[in-house]
């Protein structure tokens, strides 16, 4: 590294972080020159007559030329890593490639240019798209009642549990507890608490599924629901789904499926057919919207006929005269989102579903499962595989052997992967696996790319024995080397302040 850096002339622009936009440019730099004022100037203070606060100092805006802006943000983008840069096997996140056709569809003027307060007869196309998307999601999930309002997965969870609560209250019984397996996403117990229920943790059995004996013990008429992720966060199909849902229903409770991992089962099995009462779908994971930067997403919720009356409204409907309108479910919990949710995400999802068709969606899931199992088999000898079963779209390895042998932690393995040009997998989740590495290759990576990833992981396992110090110092090739996560968490520096 030192040899190479000696050849870079001083004054060359940094590959890594450069100055902030506020520190770039000069006071006289401008992007645009406004035309000279050709109307009489007014004194704001006089006009406002003390009715508003007037700032006395100029705001601290950057003074830069157009090309400086272009270069600044292009450089920031070049330091970033995304699915368009390389593969991104971030378990549980389904960071697959999103076809560009979805972007094209979302930008059609008839969709992108709509205003939510437009008269209903002028937005028939948008309503038709929402109706047809809801129908398609109902068919994929086997749950006919659909709301498209929730803006993300956790929002969908909350919406579903609010419907559950309303359902129980409507039958005159208040139930207080919700069961959540210990492998669940943290959003599940958080949703339970947000909804005013108490979360009860269910242990996993040796197979990675729900411990049926513990379930039996926890079930009584105070249980409102179970929240099950299927496939679960270990990437395993819950083999006892039918038995679990039957037991849950036998005490009058409802069963919720966290649909975070829908990418593994589309067109193969439907949560509605296996006894679930509700499911949320992450359109931004499975159905073609780029994500990972905090949104926008969409987390529609699909429910049984019995829960349909409680869904948030209004719901787009196909009217008898052939036109499209809006309807309010009879015992609706009310709106959970302004207007119609993140409509652009809905357009992308519809384009994705129609583009692939039913058979295509099934192939997506088959390929995602095949890719994960292929990688699992290639890596099983080099890393610990705590739950050795045929996996679904993702699998969880453990770095305990590497930790024991070279003192190399999973975090170090993840950092080293960056040098090989891969975004690291999810690490330290699920919590029930020590030194976890959760790998989800997705269906959009080619065999060649999967092999390249396997080769990198195997090379790193080698490096653990030959040069553990190297791994602890990695990454070497990224614009920013190892980030001081402790300092970032303990003493976050979040705001720019001009010195002096």
């Amino acid at each position, binding site marked *: 590294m030192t040899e190479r850096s000696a050849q870079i002339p001083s004054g060359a622009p940094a590959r890594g972080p450069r100055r902030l936009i506020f520190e770039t440019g000069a006071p006289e730099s401008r992007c645009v020159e406004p035309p000279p004022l050709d109307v009489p100037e007014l004194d704001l203070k006089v006009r406002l007559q003390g009715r508003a606060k007037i700032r006395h100092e100029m705001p601290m805006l950057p003074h830069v030329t157009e090309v400086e802006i272009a270069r600044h943000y292009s450089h920031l983008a070049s330091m970033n890593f995304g699915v368009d840069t390389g593969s991104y096997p971030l378990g549980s996140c389904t960071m697959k490639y999103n076809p560009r056709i979805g972007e094209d569809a979302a930008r059609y003027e008839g969709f992108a240019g709509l205003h939510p307060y437009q008269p209903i007869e002028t937005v028939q196309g948008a309503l038709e798209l929402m109706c047809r998307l809801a129908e398609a999601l109902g068919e994929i999930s086997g749950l006919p009642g659909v709301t498209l309002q929730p803006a993300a997965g956790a929002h969908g969870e909350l919406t579903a549990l609010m419907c559950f609560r309303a359902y129980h209250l409507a039958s005159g019984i208040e139930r207080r507890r919700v069961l959540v397996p210990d492998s669940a996403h943290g959003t599940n117990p958080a949703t339970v608490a947000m909804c005013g229920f108490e979360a009860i943790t269910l242990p996993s059995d040796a197979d990675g599924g729900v411990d049926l004996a513990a379930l039996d013990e926890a079930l009584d008429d105070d249980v409102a629901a179970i929240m099950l992720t299927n496939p679960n966060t270990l990437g395993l199909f819950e083999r006892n789904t039918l038995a679990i849902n039957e037991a849950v229903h036998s005490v009058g409770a409802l069963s919720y499926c966290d649909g975070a991992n829908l990418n593994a089962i589309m067109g193969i099995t439907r949560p509605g057919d296996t006894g679930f009462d509700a499911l949320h779908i992450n359109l931004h994971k499975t159905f073609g919207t780029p994500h990972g930067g905090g949104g926008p997403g969409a987390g529609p919720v699909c429910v049984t006929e019995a829960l349909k009356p409680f869904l948030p409204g209004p719901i787009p409907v196909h009217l008898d005269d052939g036109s499209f309108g809006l309807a309010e479910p009879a015992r609706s919990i009310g709106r959970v989102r302004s207007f119609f949710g993140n409509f652009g995400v809905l357009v992308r999802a519809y384009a994705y579903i129609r583009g692939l068709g039913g058979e295509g969606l099934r192939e997506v899931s088959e390929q995602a499962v095949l890719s994960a199992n292929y990688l699992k088999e290639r890596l099983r000898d080099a890393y610990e595989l705590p739950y050795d079963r045929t996996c679904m779209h993702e699998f969880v390895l453990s770095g*305990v052997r590497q930790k024991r042998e070279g003192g190399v*932690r999973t*975090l170090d393995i993840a950092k080293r992967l960056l040098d090989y040009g891969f975004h690291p997998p999810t690490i*330290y989740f699920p*919590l029930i696996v*020590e030194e976890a590495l959760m790998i989800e290759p997705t269906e959009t990576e080619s065999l060649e790319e999967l092999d390249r990833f396997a080769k990198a992981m195997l090379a790193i396992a080698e490096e653990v024995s030959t040069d553990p110090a190297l791994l602890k110092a990695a990454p070497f090739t990224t614009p920013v080397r190892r980030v001081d*996560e*402790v300092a970032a*968490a*303990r003493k976050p520096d979040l705001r720019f302040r001009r010195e002096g």
Partner: protein
Amino acid sequence: MYPSDLKYDKEHEWVRVNGDIATVGISHFAQDQLGEVVYVDLPAPGDSVTLGEPFGEVESVKSVSELYAPVNGEVVKVNESLTDSPEIINEDPYGEGWMIEIEMSEPSEVDVLLSAEEYEVFVTEEE
């Protein structure tokens, strides 16, 4: 790694007993598993704690974990220095990294806690 004058529970807390006062922290094993601690949430003096129930939270760069009370009683003292310097928990888990002092309502409860040897066996099985 596991001082013999301390008692331990299966949630990886340690207890130092002095009369009816129990000083509580987390074990070397626990701090190692957590990794670098960045934040601790502790109760206030006067709060009561229940055996086996969470009394606080510890957050590391990896995860957030609950702290479980090893005995019943009332919190009489809290290690305030952990608020600004939670890293002490990693550096000195049995000394400066102590978390709370509990006035035990039933001091005999400590008898069922694990000895250092028993805890070490338990930890080896966990690994």
